[in-house]
């Protein structure tokens, strides 16, 4: 899922300070799972903002809601009847959702309430790690199911580099070396021969480098 963390409170206060009627819109999707922007976090933000602005003698309207998702028009469309009651919206969805609110309500001020970080897994509650960089051409079959683009700090296709030590990346002793993981997997699977053959240069056009991406599935469109 997409993983995010809530923006610092002071940053959000600064964004909304000049508005009088603010809607905080959470999302029941990814940001709920990583406890960054679900209904709970939206309410906590609302409470914190009210405490701040009340003290400052400012009487703002701060309402809270959460949508099933903010990346599908059916759900973002549910704001249609109420959004004009507000002069600013803080979206606690990921960057995708926040932008989609803008797409659908073009004249509305929309601010991001979270920092969207990466695509990753839950190791334990409160600990999330990156797994995928959405490069658009998956090579997991060749690397024992471990992605070198996302999990090697140098996105090497012929790793490990000379800085791999004790199974850790040279960048930080907390970072596992992605290529060590690949090696161990290929060893377990009896596929170490995959290690021997040099892997050619990558075609990055399916990645961000090829330009803004979209998927058009003609089979799904009438």
């Amino acid at each position: 899922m997409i993983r995010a963390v809530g923006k610092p409170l002071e940053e959000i206060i600064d964004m909304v300070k000049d508005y009088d009627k603010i809607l905080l819109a959470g999302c029941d999707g990814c940001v709920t799972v990583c406890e960054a922007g679900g209904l709970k976090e939206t309410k906590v933000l609302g409470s914190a903002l009210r405490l701040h602005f009340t003290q400052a003698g400012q009487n703002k309207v701060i309402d809270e809601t959460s949508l099933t998702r903010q990346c599908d028009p059916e759900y973002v469309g549910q704001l249609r009847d109420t959004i004009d009651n507000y002069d600013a919206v803080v979206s606690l969805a990921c960057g995708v959702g926040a932008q989609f609110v803008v797409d659908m309500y073009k004249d509305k001020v929309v601010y991001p309430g979270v920092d969207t970080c990466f695509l990753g897994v839950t190791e334990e509650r409160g600990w999330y790690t990156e797994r995928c960089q959405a490069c658009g051409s998956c090579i997991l079959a060749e690397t024992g199911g471990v992605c070198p683009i996302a999990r090697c700090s140098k996105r090497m296709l012929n790793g490990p580099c000379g800085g791999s030590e004790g199974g850790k990346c040279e960048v930080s002793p907390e970072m596992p070396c992605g290529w060590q993981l690949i090696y161990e997997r290929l060893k377990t699977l009896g596929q170490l021969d995959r290690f021997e053959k040099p892997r050619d240069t990558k075609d990055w056009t399916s990645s961000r480098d090829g330009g803004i991406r979209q998927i058009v599935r003609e089979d799904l469109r009438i």
Partner: protein
Amino acid sequence: MRLQYPPDIRIIQVPCTGKVDILHLLAAFEEGADGVFVAGCLEGDCHFIEGNLRAKQRVKRVKEILDKVGLGGERVEMYNLSAGQGGRFAEIAREMDQKIRELGPSPIKLSKKKSTGSRVEVAA
């Protein structure tokens, strides 16, 4: 035990401090509470294993928020004691009451222009 503790403390009983949500603590301050303390079981003795540890984390989070919004994180505290420590409870209550009186009324309350006396909310 009929021990003395300050009369302006309102006690809210919960089956475990793990039930206390960040939103409950914040709501108390939004309503004008001058201070809140959470009294949970001794660490390691929680009947629900880690309820009091969750409460501790939540109190910490609320402290950070209160610091950031200018109310001051000292207005919320976590204490640990056993059900049998009546004397300790009274001591904590007095300690907290004293601290809050020194900090003064909550700016929220002042902003809302309420005229009631200082109140300390307790979740136990």
